[in-house]
């Protein structure tokens, strides 16, 4: 059975008396343990879809099924990392990371003891007691991601987590993410604007069309795992990239 199913999801907004459709009839099915990316032009409803899956927003129509159970409007059923890192500036990195555990009722001490080895293992060693403002962009993203991970849901939504990073850091973070993904066996939904990134990371890629956001295509990535930078130069990779580029290009022209 599919881990996560999105059934006929649409979302309408009314702005200044005018109705418009941010998301139209989205249907997705994501198998357990897959890495699935979503690409599409800006403003096509990717974050809206994530907000719906995370239960922060109710869809105008449709259902979201997690393990067959409808989770529309139920926040906290999936892990969600929003488009910004959103670390609390008055908390240390360690205390930021344990936020989800704390909310669940785990004592601070226990949560810290649980989180500390994770920070050490995933590249934040020595920064536990620093404040977010003292960290580089990449580190902040890592902290935000670990926070989502420690919240420990099977499905994790990542909304352009590496959008603000430079190319070098980005490559490093992608490998880091793949390592985490294989260590924790999560199902990941990943929004990005970067086609290379989408291909490099994913098992499947959904392409969204320009407003009203519709799912236009679903592409499978048949690159072997584990992947490293060499994958970026393979023929399958460039063919796929070509295909996706032309799809998005059509989008630009319609726009």
């Amino acid at each position, binding site marked *: 059975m599919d881990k996560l199913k999105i059934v006929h999801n649409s979302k309408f907004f009314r702005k200044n008396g005018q109705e418009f459709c941010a998301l139209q009839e989205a249907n997705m099915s994501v198998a357990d343990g897959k890495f699935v990316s979503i690409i599409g032009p800006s403003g096509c409803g990717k974050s809206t879809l994530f907000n719906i899956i995370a239960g922060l927003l109710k869809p105008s129509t449709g259902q979201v099924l997690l393990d067959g159970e409808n989770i529309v409007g139920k*926040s*906290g059923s999936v892990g969600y990392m929003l488009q910004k890192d*959103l670390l609390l500036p*008055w*908390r240390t990195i360690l205390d930021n990371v344990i936020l989800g555990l704390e*909310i669940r009722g785990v004592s601070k001490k226990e949560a810290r003891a649980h989180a500390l080895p994770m920070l050490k293992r995933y590249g934040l060693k020595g920064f536990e007691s620093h404040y*977010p*403002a003292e960290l580089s962009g990449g580190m902040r993203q890592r902290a935000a991601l670990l926070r989502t991970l420690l*919240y420990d849901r099977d499905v994790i939504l990542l909304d352009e987590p590496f959008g603000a990073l430079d190319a070098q850091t980005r490559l490093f973070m992608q490998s880091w993410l793949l390592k985490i993904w294989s260590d924790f066996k999560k199902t990941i939904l990943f929004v990005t604007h970067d086609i290379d990134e989408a291909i490099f990371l994913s098992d499947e890629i959904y392409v969204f069309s320009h407003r009203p956001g519709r799912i236009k295509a679903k592409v499978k990535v048949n690159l072997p795992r584990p992947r490293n930078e060499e994958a970026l130069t393979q023929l399958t990779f460039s063919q796929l990239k070509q295909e996706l580029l032309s799809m998005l290009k059509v989008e630009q022209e319609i726009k």
Partner: protein
Amino acid sequence: MYGNTEKIAVKQTTAAHLLKNDRAGESVLVEDESQKNRKIRVQVISGQILVGILIIGLWEWLTRLSVLDSYYWSSPGMILATGWKAATQGTLMTDLAYTSGATVIGFLCGTLIGSAIGLSFWWSSIYSKITEPYLIAFNAVPKLALAPVLVIMFGIGFNSKVILAFLMTVIVAAMAAYSGVKNVDKDLEKMLFSLGARKHHVFFKVVIPSSVPWMVSSLKINIALALAGTIVGEFISSKQGIGRMILYAGQVMDLNLVWVGVVVLSFLAIVMYLGTVGLEKWVLKNKNHE
């Protein structure tokens, strides 16, 4: 603001130390912010003391030369003598305790209750929008003009002074906390909800901490307002307090004693101001290390 400057400073010194060993004989310039700041601080404080001494000296000198009429202007020497007498034989000390007690109690109640009111606006936007215009209207009312009513309502004793100090501060504190609430990052709230938080989690983990700087920013204004409230209350009618002492001294034409009152109040204001600065630092520090 959330800096860890000490650690970094330590690292720098060791780095410079290593460099020094490499290049024996050459001098290595280490930029040391804290040392620079300390030097500037010493200069500022000694400058401030010097100016104070100059003003007092000038005052004394001009009254001795009769350029200023010492009947009206008194003089530092006479103020000191009168003050000493009032403190040892009169009621200056109990008056001081009375005034500062009413001010501090009124200030604390006003700040706490005001902040609680302001923060409570986060829970419901309908409630906050209904209340806000009344808050602004009440803030515009010259509360000191209500003093006679309050004195009649709460008696000429300690309570009416505390109430006045409280009324002077409570709205300012509420508005400051409300500004803080309005400026809470909506995305932070969203992030917390995505971690399965309920409203009370968001309130305690995000809304209060991010409003603290706003609440703290009103403390310094509020302590001065509280003192003004207390003194006006004492002017209207009271058996004790520095305000009453000044009023009484004026009525019997003892201008030296009036000056004593004014000077004591100035010192009280300064001490309380420094107290709030300390409180502010303490709160912000604890917030960072909650």
